[in-house]
């Protein structure tokens, strides 16, 4: 492997990794010694500076990772303000509705009501700060409980949970209880 290619591979690995990558890992994949890896990393960062790139590689406690350069922070701030998130999907909305009315509730209980796996909508809701973990339920496996957050109230313009509109409470308690205990 020539020098240029080694740099490209190094760059690609650090870029695609979900966590900082250590010199040891880089050395194993590239089949190069630690010293060479460190030399390559230094050259990459020099390239980024010379070419006025918007990012560079930074060493943190656990290894190397990409960060954007601080001088572009203002623009990245703007990115936050652009309303670029897609609206909540129907699936996420249904999951949120169940959590709002039945909190605290476990994933398995939500899945019983919705009849499908809810991993992906749960992580969307967690990521968007609409729900949070609320301890664990007693019982086998001690599953995680979920509840809505303060932000949830804020986004829907509610003072507190009592302000949630009442949805045919009788059906709610009769039918859902049966369904949940049947599990």
């Amino acid at each position, binding site marked *: 492997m020539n020098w240029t290619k080694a740099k490209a591979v190094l760059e690609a690995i650090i870029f695609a990794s979900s966590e900082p990558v250590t010199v040891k890992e880089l050395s194993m994949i590239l089949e190069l010694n630690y010293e060479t890896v460190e030399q390559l990393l230094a050259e990459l960062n020099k390239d980024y500076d010379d070419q006025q790139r918007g990012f560079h590689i930074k060493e943190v406690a656990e290894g190397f990772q990409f*960060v954007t350069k601080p001088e572009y922070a203002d623009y*990245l701030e703007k990115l936050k303000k652009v309303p670029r998130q897609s609206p909540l999907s129907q699936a996420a909305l249904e999951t949120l509705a169940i959590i709002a009315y039945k909190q605290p509730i476990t994933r398995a209980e939500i899945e019983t009501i919705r009849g499908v796996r809810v991993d992906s909508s749960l992580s969307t809701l967690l990521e968007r700060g609409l729900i949070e973990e609320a301890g664990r339920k007693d019982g086998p496996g001690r599953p995680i409980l979920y509840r809505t957050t303060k932000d949830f109230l804020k986004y829907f313009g509610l003072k507190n949970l009592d302000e949630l509109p009442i949805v045919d409470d009788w059906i709610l308690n009769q*039918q859902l209880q049966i369904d949940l205990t049947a599990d």
Partner: protein
Amino acid sequence: MNWPCSKAPMRKIKRRTDKQASYQVKLAAFTGPLDLLLHLIERAEIDIYNIPIVEITDQFLAYLQTMELFDLHIAADFLLMAATLMQIKARMLLPRPLVETEEEAAEEEDPRLELVERLLEYKKAKEVATRLQEREAEARRFFPRTGGYFPDLEVAATAEPVGQVTLWDLVQAFSALLESLLPRLELEGMPEEEYSIQEMMDQIMAGLDRVPRIHFSALFSGLTSRKAVVASFLALLELIRMHKVLVQQDMTFGEIVVARWEG
């Protein structure tokens, strides 16, 4: 011996397929009865519009016999197709009424037509699936960024997390859920009709005590549910396997008949 429908095919067929392991590898690759059927047709290099139904049905049944049916749902789907094929076969072998004119001949529908249409539609789905698979393999060579420190990761908490959704949408979503839940609960509350294969086998044998031969189509007449058809068909396969009955085509009458094994 009284198996409920949900357990019998799996256990039974599993036990006797040890020596046919080579077939199972191939069979595992089929995603459904249409996939298997299409494979048989393509392998034989025959015209999809003119399927030799007798041959193909026999081959389909032969595959089925060697199949390790892990999943009852899937097993049922294959058996249902086998029943369909045998019914088409029976219809094709029936003596046709003499037709007076060419119009009448044209009006007479080929019993294979519906199956051909389904096969053609399925074939397209399979083609698209193959193309998607190619794109998947290609796309998997591009790795996106998944880590690093970027302010974007904090966007979630600050931007509009719900988009255009209002409180009203939330309530509606919940009401709709409850509404959909009610019929499901009612359905689940109903006792499921059980079709025991042993019962179906007994029924066939009892039938053969009364008459020497039973027409294939008569076996299924009066069965209204998918489960009943499947159980009845499984019972027939089991009886054939146990050498208790014999399935023949009587050319005089053209129908497939089931008779006692005279061994």
